């Protein structure tokens, strides 16, 4: 019996030794986050992830159009929404959203995801080993992307928590909101650094792909940011450095043509590529099924009777009928399920199941020219920039004698040139509150009557010019994050 007992004891001891090893199962099908971003190559992959997160910000949608489109275009007088759809999807169109609105919290999440990923790259830069120049450039790209994201955040919600470090300690995640000026300071600092460290252009090839953020992109955004916060001269200084580095494409529609990626006019684009499973599918929501069928788009379009996003009548009517930009901006269908104007800017006739090959242009040279004009203020040079843009649209030059204020003329030109390119709501912020409120009230009331036969009397205040901070942020922070007024 002794032998047997000792054998059993031995067996147990044998099995126990090495238990810790037995329990320490190392995953093989995922990347260990705790040690990543430590080499130049990992930094490149890391920043690629930030670009990808930015792409997801565009593709992420609820019930049709991209969330960011909902907040920056459908919110404005450019686009309307399907009010027969679930209420929470369309509240933002009529300014009746509450802090529980789902597209708003979705956009909030998507944007902060970009910030956190960018912070990971930026924070790891100093310690990463390898090609230092490459590491610095990658950190510069991340700074540009962080600045662009903060620019969206500050224009949608006002002052937001200012996060510059990656989130790693989950017990200390709550940050109060900073002032708008502090957010802008970070943006300007990031962009100034990025402008010096980023190359003017990329050669193509491994880790040097064309389409990454350039110094031109940083300067253009810097100009936009300065313009937005009212520093016209700083805006001019930044934009002057971009002047002449890019050119307008002869044909307006080519800017958004499928496959015409990162063209001479493009300064920064969100890149999509269907053959890499990164095609953009969201644009189908803009296109009625009957139009898709007519154009032979295999991927098909929206089957809705009312599209989830469509051009407002106000926008359609505002164009000069001879404006060459019309066909590259919207179409009007009179047959099929959907009848009325639809957004044609992002039609890809070659699109198949895996989405379209259209890059979403966030910064381009026409924008630079119009911003320069706006920053310079009324004058011959400013009209010259505007008229460069108008010339391509097949429109006659304008000058001080034409009707309307200078700002109205700039704004109209921006609206026609940049419709549905995620600029309009941000542009409106540069007008006085009264002007924006008046524009929006008039447009919404006529649009509701026109589209749904509904007489509405809408009354907005300055509070409506900022979106509500998602209630979750406020609740979870224990009211450390405070709500915008009016919500």
């Amino acid at each position, binding site marked *: 019996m002794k032998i047997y007992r000792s054998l059993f004891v031995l067996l147990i001891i044998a099995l126990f030794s090495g238990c810790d090893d037995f329990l320490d199962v190392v995953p093989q099908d995922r990347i260990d986050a705790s040690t990543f971003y430590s080499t130049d190559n990992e930094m490149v992959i890391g920043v690629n992830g930030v670009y990808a997160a930015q792409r997801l910000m565009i593709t992420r949608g609820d019930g049709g159009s991209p969330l960011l489109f909902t907040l920056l275009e459908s919110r404005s007088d450019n686009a309307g929404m399907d009010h027969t759809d679930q209420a*929470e999807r369309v509240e933002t169109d009529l300014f009746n959203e509450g802090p529980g609105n789902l597209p708003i919290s979705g956009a909030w999440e998507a944007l902060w995801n970009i910030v956190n990923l960018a912070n990971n790259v930026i924070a790891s830069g100093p310690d990463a080993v390898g090609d230092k120049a490459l590491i610095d450039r990658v950190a510069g790209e991340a700074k540009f992307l962080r600045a662009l994201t903060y620019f969206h955040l500050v224009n949608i919600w006002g002052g937001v928590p200012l996060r510059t470090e990656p989130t790693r300690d989950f017990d200390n995640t709550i940050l109060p909101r900073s002032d708008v000026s502090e957010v802008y300071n970070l943006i300007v600092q990031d962009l100034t650094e990025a402008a010096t460290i980023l190359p003017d252009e990329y050669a193509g090839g491994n880790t040097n*792909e064309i389409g990454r953020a350039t110094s031109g992109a940083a300067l253009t955004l810097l100009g936009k940011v300065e313009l937005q916060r009212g520093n016209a001269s700083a805006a001019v200084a930044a934009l002057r450095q971009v002047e002449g580095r890019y050119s307008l494409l002869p044909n307006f529609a080519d800017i958004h043509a499928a496959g015409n990626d990162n063209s001479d006019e493009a300064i920064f684009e969100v890149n999509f590529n269907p053959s890499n499973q990164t095609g953009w599918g969201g644009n189908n929501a803009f296109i009625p099924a009957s139009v898709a069928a007519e154009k032979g788009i295999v991927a098909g379009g929206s089957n809705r009777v009312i599209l989830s996003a469509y051009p407002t009548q106000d926008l359609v009517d505002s164009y000069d009928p001879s404006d060459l930009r019309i066909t590259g901006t919207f179409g009007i269908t009179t047959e099929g399920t959907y009848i009325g104007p639809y957004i044609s800017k992002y039609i890809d006739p070659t699109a198949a199941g895996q989405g379209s090959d259209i890059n979403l242009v966030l910064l381009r040279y026409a924008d630079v020219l119009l911003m320069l004009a706006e920053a310079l203020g009324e004058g011959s040079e400013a009209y010259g920039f505007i008229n460069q843009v108008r010339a391509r649209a097949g429109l006659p030059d304008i000058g001080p004698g034409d009707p309307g204020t200078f700002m109205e003329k700039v704004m109209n030109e921006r609206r026609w040139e940049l419709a549905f390119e995620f600029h309009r709501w941000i542009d409106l912020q540069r007008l006085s509150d009264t002007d924006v409120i008046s524009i929006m009230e008039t447009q919404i009331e006529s649009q509701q009557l026109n589209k749904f036969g509904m007489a509405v009397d809408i009354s907005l205040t300055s509070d409506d010019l900022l979106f509500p901070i998602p209630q979750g942020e406020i609740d979870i922070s224990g009211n450390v994050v405070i709500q915008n007024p009016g919500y």
Partner: protein
Amino acid sequence: MILTYKHEQMQIKILQTLIKLSKLSFCILCIICLSLSSLIARESKAQVKSVKEVQIDINLNQVSLFKALKMIEDRTSFNFVLSKEKINLNQKVDLDINRGTVEEALLDLSRQAGVSFKQINENIDVRHLDKRKKDLAVEILRDKTIVGKVTDENGNGLPGVNVLVKDTSIGIVTDIEGNYKLNVPDDATTLVFSYVGYLTEEVDITGRTTVDFVLTPDVETLSEVVVVGYGTQAKKDVTGAITSIGSETIEQRPVTSVDNVLQGLAPGLNVGARDNAPGQLSRITVRSIGSLSAGYEPLWVIDGFPTDQRNAQSINPADIQSIEILKDASSTAIYGSRGANGVIIITTKKGKQGDARFDVSVNTGFSSVPESARYDVLNAQEYVQYHTEANGGVTPDFITNFWDGQTDTDWQDELLKTGTFQNYSISASGGTEKVTYLLSGNYTDQSGVISGQGFTKYSARMNLEYHPSDRITFSLSLAPNYSIVSASDNTEVNGLAGLFSSAYSQAVQLAPIIPVRRNDGSFSVGADMTGFNPLGNPLETVQRYKSTQDIFRFLGGMNLAIEPIEGLILKSSISTNLGSDSFERLYNAPNDGITRNGYPVVSTLGLAKQQQVGWLNENIVTYKRQIGQDHAFDILGGFTLQKDQFEALGANVSELQVQGPIILSLGNSETLTSFNSLSENTLVSLLGRANYSFKERYLLTATVRRDGSSRFGANNRNQTFGSFALGWRLSKEPFIQDLGFVDNAKLRVSYGSTGSNAIPNFIARPSLNPVNQAFGSAQVTGIRISSPGNPGLTWETSKQLNIGLDLTLFDDKFNIVLDYYNNETTSLLLSRNLVASSGFTGFLTNIGSMRNKGIELAANVNLIENSEFSWSVGGNVTKNDQEILDLGGDDEIRNFFGALRRTVGGELQNIHVTRAVGILREGQTLPDGVFAASATPQPGDIIYEDVDGNGAISNFLGPDGQNLEGTNLDWVFGFNTKVRYKGFELSALFQGQSGGYILDLYNIQIGAPSAAPGAPNLNFSKEYWYDGRYISESQPGDGRTPAAGRFNDGISTVSSLGNQKTDYLRFKNITLTYSIPETLLSKIGIMNATIFTSIENVKTWTDFIGVNPDLRFISNGGPSLFGGSRIPGVSDGRELGLTIGVGNPLPRIWTFGVNFSF
């Protein structure tokens, strides 16, 4: 022949040999076992020579007595049998016999060694020499033959009964008809008859040669044994809450897998449907869901192997001996970190000693969906009427332009067909005293009520036990199973789009004014009709979509048990769980370019393979001892190791250039996507349990288990669970016995902790996943955060109190089991909300607690019982109360877009919606706090409660959203009755539930009548939206249903109009059985035979509008965008109190079958 050693020395030798066995020799042993299985019972020798007659030459000098005996054994046909007395076999003896008899040799040995011999047939008993009877040193007993038949109380022959001559090892088992023939020594006076389930009885055989005997059933049934974790226990000694379901309950139900049969059978067990299509797993919970976001399913243990429901499904129900449902900490704590959700133990049948026995079961049937079980939608006339009303009394253009005025398609009639069912099982079992075996095979084939849906299963099993001695058991179990689940639509893979792509949904949603086929004979589709949702045609869908899931599972194990000393059993096992799943999904798109909602316009192919390899090593020691009359101990200790690995690989491609073949490269390579995953987890455990019983009256059980799991954070891998239970057998107390009518009464109390580790592997580690990115046409790789990780992550712990009472009264007429439980789950695995500005919405941690408490009652009454006629009625009911106690400081957690809320003080989930209170009447002045959505409401509009009193109604996320009903099932019940008259038996089973609500988003979203003018859309529920609608002031309807077209007011889509009660009572099964009399059968060599017919899902009584109140239709991946607290990969979302689509209808199944044994 065989020398039966009962000597320690030899035991050690055998043990040593066995211990030395390497893995290889284990395999060899397996093969030996296999060959041994062909052994047939030895025939008893008719004529045996006496020791006086057998000649022997033997010459030994100073050898051990043992060797001397062995020598004689080798040279003759005699076997020596050592008595329990200790005889020194090492003493040296001499023998010198030339041409002498064995008797002479024995006499010689007797003198030298002081032993006596007693010959009985070929066996020679060796004992100490009784000094008083010197002349009996060698005693030869003559045989006499006893024959007889053993029968049960009804006169049926009982096979396999042990018949033993008292105080000897002479015995035999009865044959298939209960007959036996036994040669006994002529001085034998008593025979002992023993058989499981019957009292062991002794019979005096003095002067008799024919002994027929009727065994008395063990009425108290207290000798019943139930399976508990890592062993078995006499039912009378059990202190835990365990419900045992025997094979007889399963055998005649027309089910393909065990999970389908459990509904309504056990208190505390709730079984719902995942889908009503064949081959789908059920949704099973024990004592409700005790976790907010980790897995809620019980642990399945199959013949000792802890595994999952899919493995349980692959078992042939006919192979199941018993199912035990372990519900309280006393019974589940032994499973430690996996016990918190309850444990279901499945034990398969084993062979019994005796002649080979074949059991055959053949049944076949068909299924169809009765009108009452369908989703009732409008016919053409009603459809036109509704839209005309919605259009202000004018038939809308879309109807006049499209409808021929005749077409009235009943799409469900067109789609639904009669399904078939067939099931064949055969098993062979039997064995000798050395080897027992059970071999079985099963083929099941079920086709659904929708073309292309089916479930086919091939399974086999071998359970083998080899007893080289009565102290050693080596057993082997092999169970390969292969099944195929086929489907004909992409519901499962298509997430939310499945709302439109399930064939049955299409049949429900397509307007009745659309014809099945176009004039040219091709299938119509929704897009044919202007403005109509471009649904596919279900009849076309089922032809074009083909999905199969091939499931292979192999569960096998080897088990060695040794009893070195009486009562001490050392058991070691190695088992393995191998599986592979192969998915194939092919869609052959029509090339007309017309959109079919939920399906691509191009052909697609998806293939995926999954492989799992798991192994388990268990080493268990048990020691059982009775000290004196009063103290009985039963101690168990063990050490186990388990490892499971999973690997998956898959690819999808679209734009197939040729339709039909399964070739990925036929697709457009740009569309090719692939994925793989590798995952594993390990578990190391120490476990122990002690049972103690004092005077059979006071029972005590203590259980402990320490688990280490790789799933949890490095800082928190090990945890100890345990329980303590007391039992008091009142019926052993005189004051209860004096009552006279109490057969058995036992009070049980248990308290303890068990855990749940049902979270995905690796979630505790911070990890990144690759993500594609492109710059122009340059393709690069980026990363995204896949899991934020948490190194402190640990178990959910469930503290469970159980108080139970078992009662048997009036000679087994009344059986009652009553349990009260209070389960509190703490350190809930929960995604703690983080401010989204951190870049995360939450991270998994252990916060909060919740409680389920309730009462379970199971009762069975044998109203009448005699040999001709019996009638019993039984039932069980469970009442469960659920409450969230703490959410780690938060008041509530939003789930599913905020339409479901987890609130402190609330149930697991409460429906959070805007409350609709009625319909606006003409001229009605609304009372305070009630408004319509519109500022200028019309009669027939829905009116809502204005909670914040601001004069306007907000959607569910705004101030007017409120927590309404909870989704907990307050009551779950089942009852059954059984009537037997002679050979006929009729049984019926009813089951149901009450008190639970679900938010039916289907009926108020996709399945709601579309309102936008000129937006004619899907067909919808007649009961929900047509019957009872407001038409005019003279026809105001039911006060709940809005006027035609007045539904979509922006609020209603997430309102209390979707809150449905899921109460129902279902006549689940009725079975009629006829046992053919043995007198007829014996002529053709058949032991017993029954024929039966049964109907499953006879009728359901419910107010629920939809196909099945216990079905949840929800996208496979669950909500991804605003999902709240769900942990991806843990659940399929079907535990949510919410449904978003129409599931497949519940068919009625008729079966006819024959079971027979020979």
